[in-house]
């Protein structure tokens, strides 16, 4: 059982390093903080990163966008360990500047060759990278309408 955990941790860690490097043009890794006796039931998992050639930082002191890229890389690393046939993301690009949204959109576009991605977003680089857009509106006092699918 301890072995199952370490196998999962190593796989997710490897994914995290690759994905973080792609998204942030920096380095990052997962740090397992456990006591001497190898007791993982009390262990802590920290996200260690140095985005874009800056010195290593704890999550707490990073900028809003850097925190978001780090957390997103972790989520994607988990997904790559246990892949699914479809993914649904709700405004995960909220904290990112235009260039980072573009980087994220490019990664999703490439991953979308093997799985279905349904991504809620208000950001233009994300909308432009997608194969199509589903428009959602709600007129005053009416129901939600799902409108034209543009390609």
């Amino acid at each position, binding site marked *: 059982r301890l072995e199952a955990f370490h196998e999962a941790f190593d796989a*997710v860690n490897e994914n995290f390093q690759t994905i973080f490097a792609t998204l942030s043009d920096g380095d990052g890794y997962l740090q397992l903080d456990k006591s001497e006796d190898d007791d993982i039931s009390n262990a*802590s998992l920290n996200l260690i990163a140095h985005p874009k050639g800056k010195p290593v930082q704890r999550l707490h002191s990073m900028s809003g966008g850097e925190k978001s890229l780090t957390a997103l890389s972790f989520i994607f690393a988990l997904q790559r360990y246990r892949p699914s046939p479809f993914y649904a993301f709700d405004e995960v690009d909220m904290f990112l500047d235009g260039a980072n949204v573009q980087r994220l959109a490019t990664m999703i576009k490439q991953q979308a060759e093997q799985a279905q991605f*349904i991504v809620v977003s*208000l950001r233009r680089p994300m909308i432009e990278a997608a*194969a*199509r*857009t589903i428009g959602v509106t709600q007129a005053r006092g009416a*129901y939600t309408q*799902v409108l034209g699918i543009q390609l």
Partner: protein
Amino acid sequence: VHVKRLELSRFKSFGQTTKIPLLPGFTVVSGPNGSGKSNILDALLFALGLASSRGMRAERLPDLVNHNQSNGKGSAETTVKVTFALDDETEWSVARRLRVTQEGKYASTFYINDETCTQSQLHEQLRQLRIYPEGYNVVLQGDVTRIISMNGRERREIIDELA
């Protein structure tokens, strides 16, 4: 395998049956604040039994039924159906109906290909398709912030659950 179609009836901000066809690959959903985008993801979670009512921003399941219910019977109900296209080009569907009586009692029923089933049976079949309740294939508004503000132990538990 991909989601081919979503059909929502009186779910949250949706009225009588709304069909949303979906294609494989990369689709963006966009629109103004409060229009119903996140509700579409809640519908997916609802039908597949992947979240608690709180995970769908409802205090109790009955809150998920559209507030404009007035079908004369005095009871209210909502149904969401998710149709998958399988690798062999056949369709496979999951549906969930929630009925709320006038006294406020409620009952939820799951269906696979229009035949009733339990939530565990449904989850069993979803695992075959690599869809897991403890998984992160659905990332909701606020999940990124939650991961950031988690403490180290909670984050490690995520790996425990996946292993």
